[in-house]
């Protein structure tokens, strides 16, 4: 228990500093965890309480992501989402897998590394677009749709990669049955749920909290993928009143997610389990380069310009919350260490690349003056604080 308090206070201080410097806070939470835990001073260790809280962090991260997913909106923008998303998936998924497999990871581990490698951080991309004041750029819409596509891939991934030994068809039948019941309850009880959410006592928060935990518990009891069910649950509740559910689950997400990141760092042991520093360096470098390749191709294909490609790259380098989630769910010690390092490196590189993308464009494309692109923001004029 003291360990959690210590870790939380360290994170509080880090949050104050990183927000002030407009840096992403996720890598620093993980670094703090590494320093405090197994790999570092061994001041903090995981116990039952921390395990429970990190589990809550993961559940609320996924629930929140589910709330953001609007099937009708995705449907009406499917061409925008698919055109860039498929390029992103092919390049990063395949190269990530090949790189991990070549570096000696087992087949299953290589798939996990590839998934974490592919999925950029939605939180960091959105924050950097807002803070660097790049929302007007036409690339920013492409980036947002790209993040949605990656989320959908993650959902499919979570649905299919289970640890269960049951027949996939049986699991599928159970998932459909549970989703059907949830849909029926939310459909017929919509008015009642809305009236509960409008109250100003403890009921709305209690409802949100226990509903999320309830779905997770139900899923693990009957043997269907818990993470997938929580996302799907969020998406269904998002059709009732997404703003209310966001409001009532946000405090849980904010606090438990920090616990989740810091304890992910605490439990990772970088110095045992045979993680070679070379493998980590290679993965980090390849992670930055493949997003460059996919960004450039998407930029050329959709906006007809390499300048756009650099901008898309700069904002999608960062791997973050979802990579860590994948590592926490499926990662062996070696995989978790590798993914932790990749998240730290790419998110810090990504933060600076997004901030100075204007300069990077000039350097990279010095010899290839493209047609004037508009709107294109030189971020140094708008570095928000």
């Amino acid at each position, binding site marked *: 228990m003291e360990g959690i308090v210590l870790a939380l206070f360290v994170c509080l201080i880090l949050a104050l500093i990183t927000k002030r410097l407009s840096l992403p806070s996720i890598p620093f939470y993980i670094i703090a965890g590494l320093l405090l835990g197994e790999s570092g001073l061994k001041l903090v260790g995981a116990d039952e309480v921390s395990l429970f809280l990190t589990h809550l962090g993961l559940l609320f991260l996924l629930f929140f992501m589910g709330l953001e997913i609007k099937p009708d*909106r995705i449907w009406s923008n499917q061409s925008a989402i698919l055109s860039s998303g498929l390029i992103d998936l092919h390049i990063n998924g395949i190269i990530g897998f090949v790189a991990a497999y070549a570096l000696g990871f087992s087949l299953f581990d290589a798939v996990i590394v590839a998934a974490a490698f592919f999925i950029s951080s939605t939180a960091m991309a*959105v924050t950097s677009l807002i803070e660097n*004041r790049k*929302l*007007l750029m036409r690339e920013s819409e492409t980036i947002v749709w790209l993040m*949605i596509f990656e989320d959908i891939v993650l959902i499919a991934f979570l649905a299919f990669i289970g640890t269960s030994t049951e027949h996939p068809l049986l699991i599928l039948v159970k998932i459909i049955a549970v989703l059907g019941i949830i849909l029926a309850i939310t459909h017929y009880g919509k008015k009642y749920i809305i009236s509960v959410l409008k109250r100003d006592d403890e009921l709305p928060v209690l409802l949100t909290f226990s509903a999320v935990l309830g779905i997770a518990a139900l899923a693990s009891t009957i043997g269907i993928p818990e993470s997938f069910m929580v996302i799907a649950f969020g998406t269904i509740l998002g059709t009732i009143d997404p703003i209310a559910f966001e409001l009532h689950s946000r405090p849980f997400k904010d606090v438990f997610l920090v616990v989740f990141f810091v304890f992910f760092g605490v439990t990772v042991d970088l110095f045992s389990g045979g993680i070679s520093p070379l493998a980590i360096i290679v993965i980090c470098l390849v992670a930055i380069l493949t997003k460059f390749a996919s960004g450039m191709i998407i930029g050329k294909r959709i906006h007809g310009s390499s300048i756009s490609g650099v901008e898309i790259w700069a904002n999608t380098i960062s791997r973050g919350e979802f990579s860590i989630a994948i590592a926490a769910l499926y990662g062996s010690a070696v995989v978790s260490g590798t993914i932790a390092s990749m998240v730290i490196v790419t998110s810090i590189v990504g933060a600076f690349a997004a901030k100075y993308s204007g300069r990077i464009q000039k350097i990279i494309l010095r010899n290839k003056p493209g047609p004037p692109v*508009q709107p294109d923001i030189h971020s140094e004029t708008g570095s*928000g604080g």
Partner: protein
Amino acid sequence: MALRSINLPGIGTKYELETEKKDTVAVFFLKNGNIQMYTLQHDCRTPSVAELSAVEARRLGTILTGAIMEADKESVEIAFSALSDLRISVHTYIIGKKMGGHSLEDLQIRAKTGVTIIAVSRGDKNVINPPPSFLFQEGDAVVAIGETDQLKTFEREIMVA
């Protein structure tokens, strides 16, 4: 003038307006409640950006609808588009030396300008619909209602003249 709006998941709602002169104005209502406003000149590649709080954005909106607004005077314009674009402005003023000591009756505000004084605030007391005999004091805050032109006449002929 082309107005486009789109909802960007995770970010908020975007409204983008291209003016006849090919300049772009875009407004983003962010999920954190703030508003980012981008303006981009047609031949320029770098937009300028202002981030506004909700209150600031409303103030800016009031100015853009064409109502008068000065540092210590505030106004709101209400447009009823269903009533052949009827526009009414509500404006606050601080009574100066000139009007102090006079009553509504002898100033003849409505007869001369068409403006109606609907409320007076003095210290922490408010008088709604002041009677004709009501005596103004210097420093009173008054709320006046009328068309923009009528309010301008009121400023010119009663407040200052």
